[in-house]
């Protein structure tokens, strides 16, 4: 959308504060509230995990393996190796809520830098960055993850690396588009008149004004990344054992699903509720930003 000087309303809108108080108006969307509640619940569980009176997540209770269902000692029962399921789910929340945001933030750092550079300088910089991104984006995403992780080895760091490689081009594409639409704005021209440096214009003038659409994308990406981490765990490419990882817990329990379905069901429900939380939050935020 081009803004002309004879259009004072849209000028003041775009040049002013972008989406004032999107987070403050959150309570008016029931979808967003439910999403936020789910996310906060798991965040709280992850935070207080060391304080809860739980069994150690990796301790095996051989006696409980005879009756792996729910008992007074093990509220949700035990897994195929006799480890307390409740404790493993609680500690698993810590893993996923540490790795997923870290991976998405890292992907955003790389992706936003790529997008700012290619949207700002255009020309050959843009050509190189966009073409490289296109190659990555043409891969079916799970196949990209499988090839990467199977070869560089499963670990938390390598999952972060894989998420950055797979998501940065997508983020870059969004930021590039936003930057290109902002470049015609008066506040950018004003910054040039003040003889600000390129870095200043990119980081202080352009990046903050890309914020609104990126908040929603961030939530959605968190949801997808948690799906990815869970899927990798299920494929046997997740975090190495014995520490609890929801996807890996499901994988371990699937061989016994016909006898003891609870072992696979509980971690599945935990995972789905967390992803649902982020997706509902993202949906609510989209709805709120469109209501402007």
């Amino acid at each position, binding site marked *: 959308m081009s803004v002309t000087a004879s259009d004072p309303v849209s000028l003041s809108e775009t040049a002013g504060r972008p989406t004032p108080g999107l987070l403050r108006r959150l309570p008016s969307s029931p979808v967003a509230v439910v999403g936020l509640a789910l996310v906060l619940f798991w965040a709280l569980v992850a935070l207080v995990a060391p304080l809860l009176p739980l069994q150690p997540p990796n301790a095996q209770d051989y006696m409980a393996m005879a009756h792996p269902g729910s008992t007074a000692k093990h509220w949700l029962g035990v897994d195929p190796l006799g480890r307390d399921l409740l404790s493993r789910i609680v500690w698993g929340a810590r893993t996923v809520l540490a790795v997923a945001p870290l991976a998405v933030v890292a992907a955003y750092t790389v992706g936003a830098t790529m997008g700012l550079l290619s949207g700002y300088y255009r020309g050959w910089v843009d050509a190189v960055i966009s073409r490289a991104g296109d190659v990555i984006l043409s891969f079916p995403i799970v*196949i990209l993850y499988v090839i990467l992780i199977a070869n560089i080895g499963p670990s938390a760091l390598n999952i972060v690396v894989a998420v950055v490689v797979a998501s940065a081009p997508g983020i870059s594409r969004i930021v590039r588009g936003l930057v290109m639409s902002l470049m015609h704005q008066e506040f950018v021209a004003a910054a040039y008149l003040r003889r600000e440096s390129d870095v200043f214009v990119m980081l202080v003038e352009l990046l903050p004004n890309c914020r609104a659409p990126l908040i929603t994308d961030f939530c959605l990406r968190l949801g997808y990344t948690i799906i990815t981490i869970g899927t990798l765990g299920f494929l046997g490419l997740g975090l190495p054992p014995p520490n609890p990882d929801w996807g890996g817990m499901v994988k371990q329990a699937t061989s016994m699903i016909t006898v003891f379905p609870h072992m696979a069901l509980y971690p599945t429900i935990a995972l789905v509720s967390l992803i649902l939380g982020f997706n509902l939050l993202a949906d609510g935020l989209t709805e709120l930003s469109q209501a402007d």
Partner: protein
Amino acid sequence: MTRYILRRALEMLATLLVASFLVFLVTEFSPGNVARKTLGAFALQEQVDLLYRKLHLNDPLMERYVRWVGVLTGVEADPLQDPALGLDFKDPRGDRYFGNFGYSTLYKAPVNDVLWDRLGNTALLAGLAFAVIVPVSLGLGVLAGMRAGSPLDRGLSTVSIVMTSIPEFALGVLLVAVFVVWLGVLPGTSPLDTHSGWSIAAQLVLPVAVLAIYDAGYVARMVRTSMAEVMAKPYVRTAVLKGLPRRQVILRHALRNAMIAPFTVILLQVNWLIGGVVVTELVFAYPGFGRMLLDASLFGDVSLIEAATLVALFVATMTQLLSDIGYRLLDPQARR
């Protein structure tokens, strides 16, 4: 239009070349080595080293990549099929022909013997899933987008969010728990043979459901957004105001324009389906291409990984091209 297609086809070829090199590069970082995995933990180090040399794995990366391209295009003979090496790698098609993907170290067979059967099974699975996704997502999306903000819209939108929030493997577990463990009406594995007593059709129900449910939710949301946008357009308002029945407004005026955006989304969905099948095939022990790729990646079978990646990328970029061409044909504005 011809020039456009030609340019895109060249781009596609470049993408395939770059991507196949990237795969070679990534397999360089692979821990462990193929020769050791082939011979097992008890083989002597000398034996492992010998096989490693025979497989030409200690040649420089660039040399191996160029040779791989040469073998694939039929310019060069596959050195692994040399009987003097004593590897017993025999391809009935010969050692030099176009489309020679080389020899799979994992399956001990020519890649062309392994790949296409598996791919056929996967195509069956993905095709059936696609046949479910399109009508379901169009139906849900159009119903929800007809009256944006209505209780029906909110209900359907929430349903589609829930559908996209359940990863394929989790959905597999949930469906198996209900239909296999609890109700016992369907089989939990789909090996595509009838030794288990279940018909092939029954074996396909759950894998197709897993793929379809996850993707249909996403497409339905796209259709809904597009439909809601069109319903707010002035020409739809005009049609309503001139007294056309609602049915006709939707069927004759809104629907056709609302379908342009989802058309591309649906085709791009093929890209997601390919990824989804990897997981789904593992859940249900389905003898498809995705599970083969996973096994090949874990083993470090470069020839098979390359072949599988190229096929997946070809399908993905081809559907992208088709969706772009279709978009230009459907939307006159994009042609300018």
